[in-house]
């Protein structure tokens, strides 16, 4: 077996028994990136030398009997996580050349546990997008292709598109992502891999370039549910440097993957049946429920009545928080500066921000500025916060009846570059099934479950109670076992291109 085909659990076992060294495992992935990433563009910054050095240090730790839970596992890091000494761009020109003098808590936790970083993964600019096409560093090619139109360039989803594509194409065993409205779950579904956004507060946001602080959460991508569980255990945990990080123990999520779903009550929200959803998505959803029923779960119809207001609520709350968070990019302390001879300070700010931010980011900053401005705050922002409370209440009431909720992950399979771009709202609709979990702060897992008629992967989403990722992993793993998803993307390591 080619080393890039390992699961994380499998690689950990092979490393432990000495069947492979961390250096060999990392080298295989460095070579895969060299061979494939010219086409895929999953990485903004590649760090092969540092990765190999870290792998050798990992092998040395193992020889000393000091192996951590992720010892020698090569990962891709979304370029939204600050990594000390390695350029961090957030996919934006405005952070061009920025070299963080500090490390994000999530990446520090992964390093502590022995992980090896291959590089910084491409993303939509400031994590704002569902296609990876808003990146200042170019789009990312989805390694999957349509059966009847193999030349069409499909997007990997977004915003964590580089992370998802890297894992799907076997250029990394796992990756970090962040999810503000679906930015882990939608690209996971588009790329045929698993990804979880944990409960708000499960992972520290310290050192993650902020988009919308009340919605942003870090989470892992991997090719199996169990691998996501392994990564999340290392990423999670209380951090005094993030006041919203939860001070509660981190369970052994991987152990939960083996739990039976017998007797669990699985909710089916009627409001997630949307007009215009392709029949294959409906079919897959019914199939997922059938698999869970066969495994002993009870299927319960529920109602989440405020679902249809989730996207408009999100498109007030997220831009409002973004307009505030992105005020720091002023051309003074880091990143890009654009000024004309004779520019005053205000002109410097305005030119820097006009040149440094892409169109979608400028659009969202302006929406956010408007909804927070004097005279409009109550009508938009306060109203949205109240509707957000109602969306959270819908879920709270559902938890009296069910233990987890099953929905489709996305309203379609991966689309092609150029589709959905004529109207921003059309792009926003990609997050229709995922955004509610962000608004309510709940964990959501995307798991690959089937193929559409074009041979493209489709995912299902499991939503759980706050801090009950264990049930989410148990249900996700049950679907994974039943689905037996074995399909592979056309572009992947070890396949002649």
């Amino acid at each position: 077996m080619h080393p890039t085909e390992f699961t994380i659990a499998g690689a950990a076992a092979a490393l432990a028994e000495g069947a492979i060294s961390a250096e060999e495992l990392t080298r295989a992935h460095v070579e895969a990136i060299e061979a494939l990433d010219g086409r895929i563009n999953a990485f903004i910054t590649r760090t092969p030398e540092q990765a190999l050095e870290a792998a050798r240090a990992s092998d040395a730790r193992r020889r000393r009997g000091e192996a951590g839970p992720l010892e020698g596992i090569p990962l891709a890091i979304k370029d939204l996580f600050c990594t000390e000494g390695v350029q961090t761009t957030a996919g934006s020109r405005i952070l061009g050349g920025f070299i963080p003098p500090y490390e994000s808590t999530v990446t520090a936790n992964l390093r502590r546990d022995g992980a090896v970083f291959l590089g910084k993964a491409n993303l939509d600019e400031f994590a704002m997008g569902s296609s990876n096409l808003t990146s200042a560093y170019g789009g990312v090619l989805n390694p999957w292709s349509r059966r009847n139109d193999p030349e069409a360039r499909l997007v990997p989803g977004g915003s964590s598109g580089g992370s998802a594509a890297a894992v799907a194409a076997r250029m990394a065993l796992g990756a970090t992502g962040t999810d503000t409205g679906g930015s882990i779950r939608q690209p996971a579904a588009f790329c045929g891999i698993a990804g979880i956004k944990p409960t708000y507060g499960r992972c520290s946001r310290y050192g993650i370039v902020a988009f919308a602080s009340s919605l942003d959460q870090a989470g892992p991508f991997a090719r199996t549910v169990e691998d996501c569980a392994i990564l999340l255990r290392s990423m999670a945990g209380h951090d005094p440097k993030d006041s919203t990080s939860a001070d509660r123990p981190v369970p052994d999520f991987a152990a939960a993957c083996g739990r039976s779903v017998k007797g669990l009550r699985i909710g089916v929200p009627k409001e997630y049946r949307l007009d215009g959803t392709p029949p294959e998505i409906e079919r897959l959803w019914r199939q997922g429920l059938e698999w869970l029923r066969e495994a002993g779960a009870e299927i319960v119809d529920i109602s989440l009545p405020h679902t249809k207001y989730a996207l408009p609520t999100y498109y007030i709350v997220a831009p409002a928080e973004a307009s505030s968070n992105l005020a720091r990019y002023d051309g003074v302390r880091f990143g890009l500066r654009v000024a004309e001879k004779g520019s005053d300070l205000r002109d410097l700010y305005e030119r820097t921000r006009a040149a440094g931010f892409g169109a979608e980011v400028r659009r969202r900053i302006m929406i956010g500025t408007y909804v927070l401005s004097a005279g409009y705050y109550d009508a938009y922002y306060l109203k949205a916060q109240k509707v957000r409370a109602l969306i959270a209440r819908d879920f709270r009431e559902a938890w009296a009846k069910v233990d987890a909720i099953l929905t489709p992950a996305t309203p379609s399979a991966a689309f092609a570059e150029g589709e959905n771009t004529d109207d921003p709202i059309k792009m926003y609709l990609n997050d229709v099934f995922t955004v509610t979990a962000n608004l309510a702060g709940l964990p959501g897992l995307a798991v690959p479950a089937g193929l559409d008629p074009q041979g493209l992967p489709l995912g299902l989403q499991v939503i759980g109670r706050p801090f009950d990722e264990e049930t989410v992993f148990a249900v996700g793993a049950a679907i994974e076992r039943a689905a037996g998803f074995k399909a592979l993307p056309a572009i992947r390591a070890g396949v002649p291109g």
Partner: protein
Amino acid sequence: MSLDTATVRRVAALARIRLPEEEVARVQAELNGILGWIEQLQAVDTEGVEPMAGGTPEGIAAMPMREDLVTDGGIAEKILANAPDREGAYFGVPKVVE
């Protein structure tokens, strides 16, 4: 609510984003499209509903207080290392006082 061109210019100025005159009409149309779409929230009855201000799920403990201690400092060089312009131990900016 529909934004006129003066409001679009004012919002861009508040956001400190230079907006060339030839782009005003396009930006106006985009913003009005999005604002028209989010207008549907006005139909929701939120009488007596407490706004949800943070991301922490309800029923979870509020944000903790910490000791009021200095936990950082003395790293001016690290902080200035990314500055596009610096003068000594300060960030350089265009002259703001005549």
